[in-house]
């Protein structure tokens, strides 16, 4: 694929020099960790050895383990600034460079994220989150279409009999918002279809029973129906939005993403959520910075998100919305 050759080129010419610099800094810190660490460990062992006669073996081991843990925590607290500097440079140089490479007009903020009210506006996830966070927002206008996306993580908790909280993830991954190219009034939600996949045609019975959602909308594309369940406030409007072409395009996008995909159309906007079960766009610290595969993966995720505009044909403005 040409895009992977392009990326290779970008990596070699623009990213590699920065990565090499960062890698040196990282190695320095890791080096210090081993030097100081072994000295500290030696000291701990020595102290325990000196007082050995007064302590029982069990206690000695516990003291040793505790001091090692305290040592590691202390070390990272001491070098926190240096480590976070490496991580910041990684985001501001590497991630930002990749985003600018994909489209110059895109802006990036490592700490910004899609706000909770926007997440709720999408109607994709109905559980009220009790904890909501995010990072790495990208925003901009691609031709006629305003877009933004970021990582987000929404959670709720349950309490057991003793009152201990357990946190559960509602959604974690990439959340994308774009201005849609058609006008509409109602809500249409496209969810990955689990019922129909498991139970075949009997599954649509369960879909209808889904009381928390609007009317079930059965679409004529069998492949689309197999992958997704569509709920909406208006049968015709849902079909106006989900034209036969757009259904095909959504399927293609889903295959390209290789993951579950959630889409919704409310307030004249398109929302897309792609679950990713880990923290993206982070610098590796305990392994080499010069990790082509990892950075290529970050690149693919950015490309996937930005590509939604092309993929779902959002720049075709032949309807009354300009």
């Amino acid at each position, binding site marked *: 694929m040409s895009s992977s050759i392009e990326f290779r080129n970008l990596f070699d010419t623009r990213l590699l020099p920065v990565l090499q610099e960062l890698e040196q800094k990282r190695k320095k810190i890791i080096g210090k960790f081993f030097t100081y660490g072994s000295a500290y460990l030696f000291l701990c062992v020595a102290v325990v050895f000196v007082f050995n006669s007064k302590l029982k073996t069990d206690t000695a081991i516990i003291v040793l383990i505790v001091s090692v843990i305290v040592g590691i925590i202390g070390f990272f607290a001491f070098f926190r600034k240096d480590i976070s500097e490496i991580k910041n440079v990684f985001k501001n140089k590497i991630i930002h460079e990749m985003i600018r490479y994909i489209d110059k007009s895109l802006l990036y903020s490592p700490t910004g994220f899609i706000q909770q009210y926007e997440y709720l506006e999408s109607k994709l996830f109905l559980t009220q989150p009790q904890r909501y966070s995010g990072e790495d927002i990208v925003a901009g206008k691609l031709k006629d279409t305003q877009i933004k996306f970021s990582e987000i993580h929404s959670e709720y908790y349950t309490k057991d009999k003793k009152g201990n909280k357990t946190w559960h993830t509602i959604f974690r991954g990439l959340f994308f918002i774009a201005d849609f190219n058609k006008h509409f009034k109602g809500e249409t939600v496209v969810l990955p279809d689990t019922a129909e996949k498991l139970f075949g045609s009997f599954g649509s019975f369960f879909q209808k029973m889904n009381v928390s959602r609007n009317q079930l909308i059965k679409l004529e594309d069998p492949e689309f129906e197999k992958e997704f369940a569509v709920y909406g406030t208006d*049968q*015709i409007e849902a079909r106006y939005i989900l034209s036969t072409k757009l259904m095909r395009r959504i399927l293609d996008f889903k295959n390209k993403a290789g993951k579950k995909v959630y889409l919704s159309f409310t307030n004249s906007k398109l929302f897309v959520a792609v679950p990713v079960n880990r923290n993206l766009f982070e610098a590796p610290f305990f392994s080499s910075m010069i990790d082509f595969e990892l950075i290529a993966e970050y690149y693919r995720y950015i490309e996937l998100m930005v590509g939604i505009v092309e993929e779902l044909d959002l720049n075709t403005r032949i309807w009354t919305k300009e």
Partner: protein
Amino acid sequence: MITGLIAAGILLLIIAGIYNSLVRKRNDVENAFGSIDTMLKKRYDLIPNLVETVKAYMKHEKETLTGITELRAKAVSGNISSDEKVQLENQISGAMRGIMVAVENYPDLKANDQFGMIQRSWNEAEEQISAARRAFNAAVTEFNNAVETFPSNILAGMFNFKRKQVFEIPDTERKNIIAKEMFGN
């Protein structure tokens, strides 16, 4: 005795449920059919505006324009059979296609903002008509499935619920889609 009554009662409830669902599905079909009409009307309403805008530019297409106006008047007059309606619909689509091709010869018109807006509205109306038809077909399929599958088919037979025809896109409509593609550019 009592168990018999209860069984009969339950059976009656089931029958009533199936019957109601059949009626509901039939109403959905009628409702969906009605909305196609609404959408078609929305498109007809664009015609006077279009003719008005285009008239000043298209000196050589006067006849076609008058023709379209007349067809529209007939289509919205109301007292026509559905066969006639389909025919009118096809004629209007055909004439519109002619106009949209002719637009290519009038660069001034193509650049006109108002004409651009009407084109966009026209595309929207077309897309909505297609959505309404698809909604209608979905409702018909739902209804037909109920009429032909067990156990609702028994009741459907008893109460004379008959299978309904889905909307097939006539050839001219397919060409219409090509015309629509041209609109876009």
